[in-house]
């Protein structure tokens, strides 16, 4: 699991109403949700995103509601990974269930600025800022999360269990 893309940096306590406002929750379609990703932060925010880009955030990213539409909207916008100081817990579970990779790096997140080119090697637990040369080592993923990602998310996990 390795990704390289432009970092789009957002602030602290970015809530799920900012990631995908409730008025867009009348669908479960990935593309449609992606078109309105971060519309609660700024209308048209998503226009800056190219497929493969990386979201970078401060503390408590994804706080608020349990809407799984939030990680889906980020994936739908073309971002496969979010790097943050920390994540809200429901969002954390949802993201792995949906196949969105999250990396929790604490204060080290300050080593990435908006617009930097970032390379993520999830297997090695290494983030490299290609713009500045700075590196961040991430703590290993919890075993339960690795198991989920290995199986391809919660849907295949349960399918295997029911079979």
């Amino acid at each position, binding site marked *: 699991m390795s990704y390289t893309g432009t970092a789009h940096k957002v602030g602290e306590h970015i809530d799920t109403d900012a990631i995908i406002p409730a008025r867009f929750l009348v669908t*479960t379609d990935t593309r449609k949700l992606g078109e309105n990703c971060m519309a609660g*932060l700024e209308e048209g925010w998503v226009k800056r995103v190219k497929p493969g880009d990386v979201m970078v955030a401060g503390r408590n990213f994804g706080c608020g509601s349990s809407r*799984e539409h939030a990680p889906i909207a980020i994936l739908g916008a073309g971002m496969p990974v979010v790097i943050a100081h*920390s994540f*809200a*817990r*429901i969002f954390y*579970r949802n993201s792995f269930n949906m196949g969105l990779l999250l990396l929790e790096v604490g204060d080290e997140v300050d080593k990435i600025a908006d617009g930097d080119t970032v390379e993520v090697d999830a297997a090695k637990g290494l983030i490299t800022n290609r713009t500045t040369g700075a590196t961040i080592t991430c703590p290993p993923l919890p075993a339960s999360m690795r198991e989920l990602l290995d199986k391809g998310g919660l*849907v295949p996990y349960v399918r295997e269990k*029911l079979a």
Partner: protein
Amino acid sequence: MAHTLAQKILQAHTDEAIMAAGQIVRCRVSLALANDITAPLAIKSFRAMGAKKVFDRDKVALVMDHFTPQKDIDSAQQVKLTREFAREMGVTHYYEGGDCGVEHALLPELGLVGPGDVVVGADSHTCTYGGLGAFATGLGSTDVAGAMALGETWFKVPPTIRATFTGTLPRWVGAKDLILRLIGEIGVDGALYRALEFDGAAIEALSVEGRMTIANMAIEAGGKVGLFAADEKTLAYTAARGRKDAPLSADPGATYERELTFDVSGMDPVVACPHLPENVKPVGEVRGVTLDQVVIGSCTNGRISDMREAAEVLKGRKVAKGVRCIVLPATPGVWKEALKEGLIETFMESGCIVGPATCGPCLGGHMGILADGERAIATTNRNFRGRMGSLESEVYLASPAVAAASAVAGVIAHPGSL
């Protein structure tokens, strides 16, 4: 090992021995819940999992409360899809229309949740049932789909923060003020990944409904659950709803990661200012802030005791000109009781708009959306930017008494100042 409330409940639902916080355990669930926003996604995942039936048709609840009565074609499609799924699976507890209310007010009222239960819901305010002593937490739709199929899910055993409230509540200070004060103290991520456990003389004195108000907002501090011991009041509440529950309390000598104590004597009512629930100030400090809308209702404060509190302030008074005061009793049961007690008449005489049992404006869904530059005070639980409408609007959070007093004054006001 001496267990906290959270550990004790999880232990009763797993075959693995709970030894420490941080351990991951698989637990049997007592109830799995989803609403009209989250059920369609859960159903999509449920089908993709290859599941053919729900684990127990009496232990799945589907409550169509957010965008209902159906506000547009898209939301009507979502409800239709869920209704058809409920029929196909023979789900006992499907609620829509006249028997439907805001889920976290409705399920306790129906006796579907109680002490010692493990409840998972595809809604972050599922933690409300902690007020009855249930380990109840919000999960995403796919997690809930897994629970609907298997009847179990995994949890990381949380460390617990104990919040003790001592003293006697002053007039006009209630449950909402206590939870806002706690969130103001520890912040919106102060209990991230953790359980909150509430006790103390001021908590024992609270009604079960007040405890649910507090538990409801545990998530606003990042908490996984907000738990209360089940005492005589709890057991009387659930017995009146046809349940037979046993008392429940934490083990003496249980380990707490952090212990906080608050003396409520001499406390003033508080409000949470835009745009985070942690921006908490005594009402006196924001007195005079002008308002366009007041919302009284929601899973936080839409129960009968909240309606009584608001009506007590509104009785014989008028909502200020230019302010729309929207009252949404949270369930048909609350609505009927409010009607019987004359509270609806009080609201109408005061110039309020009384609406159906719906989440509606709390999440900017419908029935009271804010325009650019508009400002509301609400008894709801979130004041994130744009939560109730325009990105340029503002929401203040407060108790029913403060919201009602502010509706009368037309500006944020202390109920004692009218």
